[in-house]
């Protein structure tokens, strides 16, 4: 079964969710798909707390992706600028990427891991506050397991270059 067919099944069974932009609905240039865990935390109202502020930032990142906003992307996990918005994680062959929410600047931010189902179609599987990830490799393993649980042996989309993954990006 193709990744597209599997994704359709997972969406119909409420194991994954297509995230509408809070401002533009499903009229979007790209598609963001999230797990139930992520949907739960990025669905407003956002609380009047520091956590609420950080989750509001997280949702804005996801909506910016959907709406086709410019995204700075680091392709090399070992040469990653600290401010990249999206970064490939090692091992590269696993095709997993880290969504990097680096604001508010006075916090450690949020990381969410997932992979591309197709060009401009990203699936966020797991997330955590950055300070809650003491060993990043463990988070990558968890994302890998989550992907396998959903898609079996069908890995994320693999592209020859960034143009095959998304539009409106800026390599950093």
């Amino acid at each position: 079964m193709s990744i597209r067919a599997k994704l359709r099944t997972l969406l119909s069974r409420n194991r994954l969710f297509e995230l509408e932009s809070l401002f533009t609905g499903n009229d979007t240039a790209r598609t963001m798909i999230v797990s139930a865990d992520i949907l739960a935390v990025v669905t407003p109202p956002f609380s009047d707390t520091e956590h609420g502020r950080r989750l509001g930032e997280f949702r804005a990142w996801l909506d910016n992706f959907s709406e086709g906003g410019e995204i700075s992307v680091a392709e090399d996990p070992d040469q990653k600028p600290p401010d990249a918005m999206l970064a490939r994680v090692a091992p590269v062959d696993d095709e997993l990427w880290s969504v990097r929410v680096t604001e508010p600047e006075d916090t450690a931010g949020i990381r969410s891991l997932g992979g591309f189902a197709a060009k401009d179609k990203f699936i966020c599987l797991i997330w955590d506050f950055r300070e809650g990830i003491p060993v990043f490799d463990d988070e990558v393993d968890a994302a890998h397991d989550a992907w396998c649980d959903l898609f079996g042996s069908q890995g994320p989309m693999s592209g020859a270059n960034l143009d095959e993954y998304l539009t409106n990006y800026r390599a950093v």
Partner: protein
Amino acid sequence: MSTSQTTGLYEPVRSEKISVGTLGYIRARHRQRQYDIVIRELKKSGISQADLARRLGKAPEVISRLLARPGNWESDTFSDLLFAISGAVASYHAEYPLSQRVEEFPAEQIKPESAPIRSKSAFSLGTQANNDAIIDEWKRQAQGAPIPMAA
């Protein structure tokens, strides 16, 4: 297909405090829009980061850092970047995306204490007393009260 519900983000109402979470979302969107404009101008212009740094009298690493993500730029920084890249200046206008989308909310999901503004034009043209009456009516509807027939 499972599609997430678009609920829970409302325009400000009266003196109700806006949560820092909501402000965080709105601020991030604003930063991202500024970033989009600057990066698109940069791509269109073809200017190198090194030249941009020289035009602004900044170190290349400062420019590199600024352009790496939608940071919390000062207004002057945004203005400087845009002008230095292509001689552009930003133009501004206000939008009301939440009032445009509110018709899609099921009534039971509208918080009575933060009833959204359903029609910006109808609202803004009214007097304060009329607007208060409109808000009260929305709250009644959100609470499931019968909608009175028009006279």
